[in-house]
């Protein structure tokens, strides 16, 4: 299996599009799921996956075969999302400022229209996290990656990951109470 994968990587790195497609096909839905959780909607998620695959094909020559291919792809997806999430956060802050001036809260309305049920609640709760907290929370708690894998993907120390994770979980717990009152029951505060 590893030999087949290595052969495909070599062919794809040499410019064979078909080999590249065969190589990444098993990861397609996992990549989409991650991008969806990071971006919050399918349309943006598909754009991110396409962008990530374009970059992955171009830089496949630099891929170290010793590494896990999915983790490498995850790194590219996360980087593609990171800037967009930061830009989105700034945009939403601007939108909130506008809503304070008597305008409708655009971001919240849009979220309500786009999502329903737990998906909508989760996305809404994750909205208050910083880009890094959101990514760490998704990688660790939803995508079940280890702290070490997350730190490799985000290229930061394990302690930094733990710090962001801790902060993200606290915020998520507080935010989830808005939709699920049973959360946080028995808390001191």
């Amino acid at each position, binding site marked *: 299996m590893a030999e087949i994968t290595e052969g495909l990587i070599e062919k794809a790195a040499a410019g064979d599009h078909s080999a590249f*497609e065969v190589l990444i096909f098993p990861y397609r839905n996992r990549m989409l799921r991650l991008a969806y959780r990071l971006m919050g909607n399918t349309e943006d998620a598909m754009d991110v996956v396409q962008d990530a695959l374009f970059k992955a094909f*171009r830089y496949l020559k630099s891929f170290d075969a010793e590494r896990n291919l999915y983790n490498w792809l995850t790194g590219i997806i996360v980087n593609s999302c990171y800037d967009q999430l930061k830009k989105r956060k700034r945009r939403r802050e601007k939108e909130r400022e506008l809503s304070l001036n008597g305008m409708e809260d655009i971001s919240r309305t849009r979220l309500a229209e786009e999502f329903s049920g*737990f998906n909508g609640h989760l996305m809404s709760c994750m909205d208050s996290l910083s880009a890094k907290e959101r990514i760490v929370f998704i990688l660790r708690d939803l995508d079940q990656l280890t702290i070490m894998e997350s730190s490799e993907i985000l290229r930061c120390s394990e302690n930094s990951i733990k710090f962001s994770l*801790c902060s993200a979980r606290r915020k998520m717990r507080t935010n989830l109470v808005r939709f699920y009152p049973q959360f946080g029951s028995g808390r001191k505060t």
Partner: protein
Amino acid sequence: MRCRRFNRKLPLFVGGELSLEERNAAEKHLRICSVCRGELEAYSGDVRRLSDLAGEMWIPVFTDREWQGLMDGVKSRLEKKEIDTSSGGRGLQILAPAVITAAALLMAGWVGLRVLRDHGTEADAPLPRAEISLEQSVMIDNIDQDIDAVFCSGELIDLRQVRYLYLFKEK
């Protein structure tokens, strides 16, 4: 470990992400603190609830058509990039001789001007460049255009020479 520190570490304790040393300290604290035990129980319950809810989460899946469309998009971007790169390279190959010739001509022109400025022609030779300071040159710049000549450092300067004074200033 005290309650405040334990509470700070609680999300990592439940996730099993604390170092062995910190974990031992947290367990030691739990044995003596009923408040933190209650907090741990509440937090663990929330983690379970979140896990149950996450199981109900809708997750997008590629249809064959969407996947094919996405891959077609990737391929067309790659092909466009390849064309851009190769046409850029071909363009450079065509332009290279012209660029080199233009650079050589510019260099020759620049050297010629330097020689002309440094040595001048016979007609330029008597110009009193060495005796004119920058300050005086500025004064000459400002004089009325109706005046034909000025005295500068004891020399009469013909204002037809003003352009040379600019050269001198730049030098």
